[in-house]
């Protein structure tokens, strides 16, 4: 029983990390029809810079970590918005080229990160509490999971509020459903593109700092490996659906944790889940978007 609780809560914690990456991917794909292969790089860069700033503020302290998280959010948002403006916008409505450009940026940026921070992971110091555990129904849950889960819930709430309450949110919701008609109402949908990139980048940036908390290290490849799972989450959840991304994040991570514990085949279980979903429900769990 306590094992199951541990696996479930740990799974939800990992799912929180997946969600921070997948939410942006899903929004960007939903609105723009672009699968963003550079998304992992937003995460990695924010993770590195958040750590660099955080440790100067206070290595291993809460202050340092919080400043790092804030820096991660800002770096993620800025880099993502810049990517959209410089590389994606000139290729307006040429989706394959847009995907290819993000592929190139993804490859190039990882190489650059390796050049700057080296190929080996760097161990980082964290506030002591995060390394301790809390007893829940007899299971010792690592405390960093609470931080991850809390942040993901906050991000989900903020994105939902933004989408529901602001005029840009309205444009984005409409655009996910029918981008062409939005432009035919006289709205410059490209501005919404920059905004979803910034939002997705901010979430991924926070994810980058939290990934370093989860793994206890920063590395040039952190984003790439998370990105693949985030892709799978996005497809399972239904491309373009934020709710779908949230549900699928938790589902995929929990399945992965359970399968890893009972037989060590977590990655296969995830691939299997993807294959099953696509075969029986090709649009994903919550997907309706058809571009």
């Amino acid at each position, binding site marked *: 029983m306590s094992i199951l609780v541990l696996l479930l809560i740990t799974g939800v914690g990992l799912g929180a990390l997946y969600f921070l990456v997948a939410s942006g991917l899903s929004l960007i794909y939903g609105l723009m029809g672009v699968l963003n292969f550079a998304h992992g790089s937003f995460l990695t860069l924010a993770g590195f810079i958040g750590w660099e700033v955080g440790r100067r503020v206070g290595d291993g302290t809460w202050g340092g970590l919080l400043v790092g998280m804030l820096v991660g959010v800002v770096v993620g948002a800025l880099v993502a918005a810049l990517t959209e403006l410089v590389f994606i916008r000139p290729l307006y409505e040429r989706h394959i*080229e847009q995907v290819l450009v993000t592929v190139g940026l*993804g490859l190039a940026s*990882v190489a*650059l990160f390796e*050049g700057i921070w080296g190929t080996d992971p760097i161990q980082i110091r964290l506030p002591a509490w995060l390394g301790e555990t809390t007893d829940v129904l007899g299971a010792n849950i690592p405390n960093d999971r609470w931080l991850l889960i809390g942040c993901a819930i906050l991000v989900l709430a903020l994105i939902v509020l933004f989408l529901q309450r602001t005029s840009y949110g309205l444009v984005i919701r409409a655009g996910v459903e029918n981008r062409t008609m939005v432009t035919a109402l006289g709205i410059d949908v490209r501005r919404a593109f920059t905004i979803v990139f910034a939002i997705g980048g901010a979430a991924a940036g926070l994810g980058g700092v939290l990934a370093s908390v989860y793994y206890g290290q920063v590395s040039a490849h952190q984003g790439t490996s998370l990105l693949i799972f985030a*892709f799978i989450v996005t497809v399972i959840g239904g491309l373009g659906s934020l709710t779908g991304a949230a549900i699928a994040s938790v589902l995929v991570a929990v399945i992965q944790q359970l399968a890893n514990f009972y037989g060590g085949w977590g990655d296969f279980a995830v691939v299997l889940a*993807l*294959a099953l979903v696509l075969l029986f429900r*090709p649009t994903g769990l919550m997907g309706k978007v058809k571009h």
Partner: protein
Amino acid sequence: MRTFLHSRWGKLAIGAGVVAIAAILPLLDIRIPGVLPGPTYTPGTLSMLAYAMLIAALALSYHLIFGVAGMLSFGHAMFFAAGAYGLGILLSLLAPTGMPPEAVFLLAIALTLVLALVLGGLVGALALRVTGISFAMVTLAFAQAANVLIRRNTAGLTGGEEGVRIETDVVPELLVGVVNTRNLYWLALGILVLVYLACLWLERSRLGHVVAAARENELRVTVLGLRPYRVRLFVFAAAAVLGAIAGMGFMLLQSSATPRISTADFTLTLLVIVVLGGVGYRWGAIVGGIVYTLLDQRLADLASAAWIQGLPDVLRIPLSEPLFLLGMLFVLVVMFAPGGIVGLAHRVSRRRGGARDATRPEALQDVEA
């Protein structure tokens, strides 16, 4: 002259000429400083050129999927790895059986081909049930699963991170060792020509036309009573087998294989190569493959050059990362030269001919869902 060069026989003559020149390179003493590491007869240079040609062959097989059929697959590295690992593992499994080495070698090759065909057929059959980005994701997921299998030293066969070494006892002597690099070079050239001819035949066949038509307009093909699913599956499986052939050549050339060749990054490299060369052009895949490999090698040497090491960090770090430079080059090509190298060449020659302007390659127009 111009008309002759563009005629069927002219093209054949050019092709034969290029192959002939490539074939006699190991007998010549050509030095291209900055491009080749040494004279063309030295094993180091030959081995690098052979590697470049195998990558070109692999890129050609990927061209069938991406350029011809318009399917964005992120799993093609899986088939290259299947060829390399398949051959390596089967050789070491069959070696102790006591069969004559020649028989072991041929049997291993035959079984690897069957393996690639089955794998390509299965993955294709599942992945092709969806299209567009979902197809890309399924192929990525399968490739990822294959990568994990290989990395984990599954059943004690794949050797984990160490990879697999080839069992040289059962490989024909002509293909073993540095002294025989020349033969391996010819083998690589042969594989490239073989894959090229297979692509040519496939693209010219009725099937090739149907699959290309389905790329442009799926509905119209369906209305004509043709099933895009089957022809796509055939092309996918054929590309898998051709990719595996390149993988076997790689195994013989390098005498070992590591999990690197099964990663998603490796497939992305193929995508970069095909786009760099020019999507939709057979020659694009070849030129892209060779240019990319040479650049990759030379840029790595450049990184250790003294004048680079003396630069301030802001310049030194980007310049010492070949993949950074190649990635950015790729981005620039996508943004400003959509036809890639071959597309640019076409545009230049057409402009000189004063005729039509080059248009964007059709394959890029719409591959998405």
